[in-house]
């Protein structure tokens, strides 16, 4: 038995809605009629006996009754709407009618209004992403690290893509397309987001405190705690040490070389940048009296 229904996973960028209309008309000619349009997938039914012309409208509609009636009056059948305010209509194709008979925007003003609404939405989201690029960049200049850099890249990609879309809608030029694939774009964004989350989760995230009233054995070197660095990057040390007697605080790598050392009766570090290669690290304390230490490494 031949398949009578199919689901298409093709999706289109907002600024490619004309291409989507073309594709729907072509599918209809081949006997596949759109029955339900969606943001990421659409359902088609096989019916080779009819041929439709499709049109898309983008707007926020308050009362659907008057809206659908306005289209029905001129022979347009309402297909459905997506949650993000795209509305799909179709009209049986009549070879006797000129192409203009299938236009739903018949003056420049209303077409520009529709494209303007789309452009406005893209501008809002695009500038939102640009604002994120700026805040992430400021953060990254102060504390350069990989997860941050990755977030900058994917917000930058997002804002460029959306702002370019808004530009195309405002200043349409015929045949100027590198048409992007929505799927590829979403996968890239996903990878960027998950990648930065993953890198973030791989960081040591060390938070510990310790204190001692007094030391029983004189001049003892204590192995306090240890952590792993999973990828080379800049890490940031916060440290707050107070003690009655001088204390030596040391971070050592596997080879026993100290990557950080500080001594005294009281010292602090705030977001001290340490460039650490991959490996296992151990923190040693050398002290002769009671102490209080708060330490975190991110």
């Amino acid at each position: 038995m031949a398949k009578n229904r199919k689901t298409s996973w093709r999706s289109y960028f907002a600024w490619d809605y004309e291409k989507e209309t073309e594709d729907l008309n072509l599918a209809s000619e081949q006997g596949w009629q759109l029955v339900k349009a969606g943001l990421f997938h659409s359902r088609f039914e096989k019916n080779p006996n009819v041929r439709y012309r499709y049109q898309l409208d983008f707007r926020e509609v308050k009362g659907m009754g008057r809206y659908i009636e306005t289209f029905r009056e001129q022979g347009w059948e309402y297909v459905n709407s997506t949650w993000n305010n795209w509305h799909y209509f179709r009209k049986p194709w009549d070879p006797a009618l000129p192409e203009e008979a299938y236009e739903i925007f018949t003056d420049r003003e209303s077409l520009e209004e529709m494209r303007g609404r789309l452009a406005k939405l893209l501008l809002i989201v695009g500038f939102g992403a640009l604002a994120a690029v700026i805040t992430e960049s400021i953060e990254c200049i102060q504390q350069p690290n990989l997860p941050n850099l990755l977030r900058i890249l994917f917000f930058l990609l997002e804002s460029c893509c959306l702002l370019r879309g808004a530009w195309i809608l405002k200043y349409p030029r015929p045949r100027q397309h590198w048409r992007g694939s929505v799927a590829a774009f979403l996968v890239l964004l996903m990878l960027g987001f998950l990648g930065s989350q993953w890198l973030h989760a791989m960081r040591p995230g060390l938070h510990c405190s310790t204190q001692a009233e007094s030391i029983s054995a004189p001049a003892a070197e204590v192995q306090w705690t240890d952590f792993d660095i999973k990828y080379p990057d800049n890490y940031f040390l916060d440290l707050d040490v107070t003690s009655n007697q001088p204390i030596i605080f040391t971070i050592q790598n596997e080879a026993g070389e100290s990557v950080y050392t500080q001594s005294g009766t009281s010292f602090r570090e705030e977001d001290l940048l340490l460039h650490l290669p991959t490996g296992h690290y151990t923190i040693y304390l050398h002290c002769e009296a009671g102490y209080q230490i708060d330490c975190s490494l991110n």
Partner: protein
Amino acid sequence: MKRSEPMSESYYYILLCLARGANHGYGIMQMTEKLSGGDVTIGSGTMYGATSNMMKKGWIREILSDEPGQERRRLYQLTDEGRAALRAEIVRLQRMLANAGEV
């Protein structure tokens, strides 16, 4: 008085049609085509946008038909503000035409 913006052709013809009495979208579309000798057409998207905007401006209002057989059909009706806006546009167009005569 603040100078009003020139109207789009669609707005102008919709108001012009409604000046002859309340009508529905399809009636407006047909009358516009007839008046303009087929030159001006008003597609559904343009019609919905124009009528929505003009209702917001208070130029037209929505009423329900009470004609037998047409009950509860949506009609658009010109308001006084709408009539004034149409008159102002006609004056503007007449002035432009008059100016053309001086060439």
